[in-house]
C-alpha cells in the first residue's frame, strides 16, 4: 500500500470535509442510495410484478458496493439545452479535458484515460468504435431522461471499456396520460443560441416522446497571450460551433398485460471548427460528426421473471478536414442483446444474458473496409442475505478478437447501523459499509487495430483488477434537515495498457506497453434543509487521484513511476442551492489542480478555480402554461485557464433561458 495514499495531511483534509455539517442539497447530485429503497424494493418484488406497468430491474441493482452519482431531474432540466460534458463539469468533480464550449471533450474517471469509460445508451455501448471513446460534447442532455455515473471497474455489468467507470444514459417512456410539452430558447455570450423542444403523450396503450434540441455558438471570446510586444489580446477564431442538433423520438407500446415494445432513435449532427492551439498556424480544421442510433426493445414481465430482447443499429460518421488533410470515416454497428431475470428463492435475483456486436468500418486509412465481431455472455446475481446485508456476484465471459477475457465481480453492502423508518419511530441515521472487487477489460479500438500506418491487429485487450471500499452515512433531523456523507477509497491495476509510441523501427503503433496503477479517495457530503418556503441545499465533493505507470515493459519508451497526463491530483466541486417561493438561486465552485500534458511529466497546465451561478424565476401563466426564466453565469471570476493545452477556456459568460411548459 502506498504511503502517499494515506499521507497524513491528506487524511486530515478529507476528515475536515467529512466533519463539515453542511446544510445540504437535493440539488444536482443526490446519492443514488436512498437508504431503505433497495431492500424495500426487492422485498416487495413479488407484489410489484403484478402491476400493469412493466418496470425493469436496472443493471445498477447488481452493482452492490459500488459508488454511483445520479443526475436528478432538476439537473437534467437545467442543462437541457447543453451537453453531458457541461453537466458533468458543473455538477461533479470529474475532470473532462475540453477544447472549449461545444468542442472536443473527453473524460477521465479514476485516473484512467478517455477510452476507459464505457458510455451506454439504453443499455448499449455507444462509444465511437474507431476511436474507442466518446466525445462528451456530442451527447446532448435533452435526449435523455436519466444520467448515471458509476466510477470504478464494472465490465461484468457494462462490458468492454468499463475500467475507469461507466456513464449510463437513457430514456424512459412517460406513461402519464394526456399530452404535455415544453419549449425553451437560450441565448448567451459569444454567439450562443439554442432551443429545445420536448413533447410527450400517452394513452393506456401507447406512449410517445419527442425531444429535439439545436445549438450554435460563435465562441469568439477574447484571450491574452504574452508575445514579444507584451501582453496581447486576441479574439478566438476558428472555434465556432456551426450547428449541433439532436432529435430523439420514442414510441412505447404495451402488448398485453406483461409486454412492452419500445422503439427509440437518437439522431445527432454536429458541425464545428476544431480550434488551433494558441501560437499555431490556423489550418482551418473542421469536423462533422453524425450519429444515427436506433434501438428496439421488447420486455416481458412474467410472475417471477422478466426477459428482454434488444436489437440496435448505429451509424457513426466522423469527417475531418483541414488545409492539408481529409479524413472521412463511417462505422456501422449492429448489436443484439438478450437477458432473462428471475427470482431465486425469496432473497436472490439472477440475470442471465448474452450480447453480440458486429462492426463495419469504412475508412481509407484502414485500407478499405474492416469488420469485427464481439460477443459476451454474462450472469449477474444479487443476494439480499438480510435486510441489512446485500451481496452481488457477477460474471462476464467476453469473446473478442484473439482473446476471451473473463470478468468476475463481487460486491457487498452492509447496513452497519440503521434505524428503520416506521410509524412509531422515524428514520434518523444509517451507516452503510460497502466493498467491491472487480476485473475489467477493454477490447482494442478499431483504430488501434487497423489504422494505417501503425495499426496493430495483435493487441491484447487491456485488463484491470480493482477494489473499492467505502462508508456512507446519512442522518436526518425531523423533516427539515437531511445530511449525508460518503467516503470511498479505491485501487486498480490496469495491465496491458495500450499506448501509441514509436516501436523499434521508429514507427508509431499501439502496443501493450505497461501496467498502470490508479488509486484515490472520493469524498462527498451534502444535505438539504427546508423551512416554510425556504429550501436550501448544499453539496461538496472532493476527489484525490493518483495514477502512475506501475511497471513498464522493456519496449516502453516512458520509464515507470511517472504520473499519467491529464489526471489532476485534486478535484473539488461545491454547490449551494437556495429556493424561496418562485425564486431559485444557485452558486457552484470548482477547483482542478495542475495536470501534466504528456508522458514526460514535465510540462503542465496550472490548477484553476471556477465560480458559477444561476438565478431563476417561475411565472404561472393562464391556462396550463408556466413560464420559467433562468439566467446562468459561468467563470464569474474571469479566470484565465486552459482545460486542454493551448486552448484557452472561455472567460465570464452569461446565458439566458426562457422556457414555456404546458401541463
Amino acid at each position, binding site marked *: 500500500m502506498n504511503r502517499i495514499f494515506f499521507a497524513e495531511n491528506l487524511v486530515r483534509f478529507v476528515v475536515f470535509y467529512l466533519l463539515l455539517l453542511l446544510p445540504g442539497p437535493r440539488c444536482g447530485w443526490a446519492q443514488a442510495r436512498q437508504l431503505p429503497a433497495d431492500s424495500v424494493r426487492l422485498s416487495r418484488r413479488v407484489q410489484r410484478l403484478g402491476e400493469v406497468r412493466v418496470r425493469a430491474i436496472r443493471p445498477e441493482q447488481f452493482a452492490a458496493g459500488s459508488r454511483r452519482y445520479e443526475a436528478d431531474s432538476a439537473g437534467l432540466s437545467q442543462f437541457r439545452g447543453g451537453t453531458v460534458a457541461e453537466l458533468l463539469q458543473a455538477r461533479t468533480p470529474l475532470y473532462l479535458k475540453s477544447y472549449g464550449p461545444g468542442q472536443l471533450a473527453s473524460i477521465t474517471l479514476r485516473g484512467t484515460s478517455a477510452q476507459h469509460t464505457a458510455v451506454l445508451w439504453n443499455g448499449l455501448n455507444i462509444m465511437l468504435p474507431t476511436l474507442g471513446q466518446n466525445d462528451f460534447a456530442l451527447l446532448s442532455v435533452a435526449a435523455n431522461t436519466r444520467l448515471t455515473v458509476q466510477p470504478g471497474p464494472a465490465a461484468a455489468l457494462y462490458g468492454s471499456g468499463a475500467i475507469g467507470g461507466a456513464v449510463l444514459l437513457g430514456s424512459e417512456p412517460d406513461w402519464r396520460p394526456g399530452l404535455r410539452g415544453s419549449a425553451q430558447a437560450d441565448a448567451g455570450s459569444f454567439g450562443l443560441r439554442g432551443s429545445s423542444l420536448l413533447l410527450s403523450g400517452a394513452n393506456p396503450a401507447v406512449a410517445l416522446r419527442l425531444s429535439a434540441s439545436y445549438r450554435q455558438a460563435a465562441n469568439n471570446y477574447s484571450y491574452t497571450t504574452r508575445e514579444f510586444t507584451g501582453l496581447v489580446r486576441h479574439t478566438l477564431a476558428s472555434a465556432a460551433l456551426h450547428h449541433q442538433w439532436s432529435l430523439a423520438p420514442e414510441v412505447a407500446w404495451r402488448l398485453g398485460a406483461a409486454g412492452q415494445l419500445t422503439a427509440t432513435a437518437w439522431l445527432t449532427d454536429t458541425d464545428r471548427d476544431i480550434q488551433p492551439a494558441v*501560437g499555431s498556424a490556423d489550418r482551418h480544421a473542421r469536423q462533422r460528426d453524425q450519429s444515427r442510433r436506433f434501438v428496439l426493445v421488447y420486455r416481458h414481465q412474467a410472475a417471477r421473471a422478466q426477459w428482454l430482447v434488444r436489437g440496435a443499429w448505429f451509424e457513426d460518421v466522423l469527417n475531418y478536414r483541414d488545409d492539408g488533410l481529409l479524413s472521412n470515416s463511417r462505422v456501422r454497428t449492429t448489436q443484439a442483446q438478450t437477458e432473462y431475470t428471475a427470482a431465486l428463492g425469496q432473497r436472490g435475483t439472477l440475470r442471465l444474458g448474452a450480447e453480440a456486436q458486429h462492426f463495419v468500418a469504412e475508412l481509407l486509412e484502414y485500407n478499405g473496409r474492416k469488420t469485427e465481431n464481439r460477443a459476451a455472455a454474462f450472469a449477474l446475481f444479487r443476494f439480499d442475505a438480510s435486510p441489512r446485508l446485500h451481496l452481488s456476484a457477477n460474471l462476464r465471459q467476453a469473446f473478442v478478437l484473439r482473446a476471451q477475457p473473463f470478468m468476475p465481480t463481487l460486491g457487498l453492502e452492509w447496513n452497519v447501523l440503521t434505524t428503520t423508518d416506521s410509524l412509531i419511530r422515524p428514520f434518523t441515521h444509517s451507516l452503510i459499509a460497502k466493498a467491491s472487487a472487480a476485473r475489467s477489460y477493454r477490447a482494442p479500438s478499431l483504430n488501434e487495430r487497423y489504422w494505417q500506418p501503425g495499426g496493430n491487429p495483435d493487441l491484447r485487450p487491456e485488463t484491470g483488477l480493482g477494489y473499492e471500499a467505502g462508508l456512507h452515512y446519512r442522518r436526518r433531523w425531523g423533516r427539515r434537515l437531511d445530511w449525508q456523507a460518503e467516503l470511498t477509497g479505491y485501487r486498480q491495476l490496469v495491465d496491458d495498457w495500450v499506448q501509441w509510441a514509436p516501436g523499434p523501427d521508429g514507427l508509431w503503433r499501439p502496443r501493450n506497453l505497461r501496467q498502470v496503477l490508479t488509486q484515490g479517495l472520493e469524498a462527498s457530503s451534502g444535505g438539504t434543509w427546508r423551512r416554510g418556503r425556504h429550501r436550501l441545499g448544499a453539496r461538496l465533493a472532493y476527489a484525490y487521484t493518483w495514477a502512475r505507470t506501475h511497471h513498464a515493459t522493456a519496449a516502453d519508451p516512458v520509464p515507470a513511476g511517472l504520473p499519467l497526463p491529464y489526471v489532476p491530483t485534486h478535484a473539488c466541486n461545491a454547490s449551494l442551492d437556495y429556493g424561496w417561493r418562485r425564486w431559485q438561486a444557485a452558486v457552484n465552485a470548482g477547483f482542478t489542480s495542475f495536470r501534466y500534458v504528456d508522458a514526460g511529466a514535465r510540462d503542465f497546465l496550472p490548477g484553476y478555480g471556477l465560480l458559477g451561478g444561476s438565478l431563476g424565476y417561475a411565472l404561472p401563466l393562464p391556462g396550463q402554461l408556466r413560464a420559467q426564466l433562468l439566467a446562468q453565469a459561468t467563470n464569474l471570476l474571469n479566470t484565465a485557464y486552459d482545460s486542454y493545452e*493551448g486552448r484557452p477556456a472561455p472567460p465570464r459568460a452569461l446565458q439566458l433561458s426562457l422556457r414555456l411548459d404546458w401541463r
Partner: protein
Amino acid sequence: MRVSKFWAAPLLSLLALTSCDPDDDQPVNPQPETTSVFVINEGNITRSNGSISLYNKTTGALTPDLFASVNNRPLGDVVQSMTVSNGRGYIVVNNSNKIEVVSLPGFQSVGVVRGALRSPRYFLPVSATRGYVTQWGNFRGLRADVKVIDLNTFAVVDSIPTGPLPERLVLAGGKVYVANSGSNTLTVIDPATNRVSSTLTVGDAPNSLATDKNGLLWVLCGGTVAYTPTYDVDYAATTAGKLVSVNAAAATVAGTRTFATNRRQPTDLQINGAGDQLYFRAADALTYTGPVFRLGIAETALPVLTAPFIRRSFYGLGVDKRTGHIYGGTGTFLGTDKMIRYESTGTAIDSAAVGAGPNGFVFY
C-alpha cells in the same frame, strides 16, 4: 459572522491546493561561447510546445526550455531550425509562421519576423543586413519561395520563387543554393540582386547541403517517396537517393552517385570541422528516423544503407565542428526525448533528456 468563518477554511484549502503546481522556474545557465549546444526540440505539431534546450558541454548542465525561461513566453509550434549569425540566433518556428530572433549568449528576445511567412523552414544570413528563409507556402494556393528579410527591421522585403518544398540552403561560391525537396532541382540565387540566376538539376528530392574543405558543394537527395492510396510506401515507384557534388562557383554538377536501395531516404547531411567527413541519416519513409552513416569526401563508394556507422535511429543529427563529437536526437515525441553524444569514432559518450523531437543541434 458565523457563515464566513464556515467558508473561510475550505476557501483557504482551495488556495493551498492552487499552490500545489510544480515549480515552474528552471535555472538558466551562463552560456560562454564554445561550450553551448542549442538543441532544437521541434515539439508536437499543433501543441505549440517546441523549445530550445541549452546543453553545456563542459558541465553537462541542461536547461530544458531556454527561450521560455529567459523570455517568459513559449517559443511556438514546430521549431524547425536555428541559425546563429553576428551574435544573434534566428529560430524558425514553422507552424507559428514566424522567426524568433534572440541575442546571444543571453537568449533575450530582440524581435520577431512575422510578415507574410507561411510554413518557413530554414534561415540563412546572406549579408549583414539581409537574410533568406525558405518557406513551403500553404495549401490554399500560396506558392513556395524564399523570403528576403531585413535584419534590422525584421520585415520581409522581397520574395524569390523557388521549386516546390524548398528546404535547406547554403551560401557557396558567392551564390545561394536552395534544395527544392519537392522536385529534383536546386534553385541558384545571386544574393547581390536577390534574383534566381539558374536552376540546377540534381537527384530527386534534394534535402540538405554541405561545403567541404575544397569548396565542393555536396547535395544529398533523398529520392522521391511514392505512397499508395492507403498511405503505405509504394517502393515500386519510390526512387533511390543520390549524392551529388556541385562545383559551386560555376554552378555545374560535378558528379552523381546513386544509393543501392530505395528502402531508406538519405537526409540531414553534415560535415565535420576539418571538412573531409560527411555524415547523414538514412531515414525511414514513414518515421523520418534512421541510423547514421559516414563518408569521407575522397571515398569512391557510397555507404551501404544496411551497414550504418551508428546503428541507433535518430530524428536529428549534429556534428560538433570543434570536438568532432556526433549528436543524435531520438524522435519519440512523447513529451521528452533524448540526445545522445558519440565520439567521432562512433562510441557513445552520454545522453541527456531534452524536449520532444530534437531535430538538430547548433554548436555555439
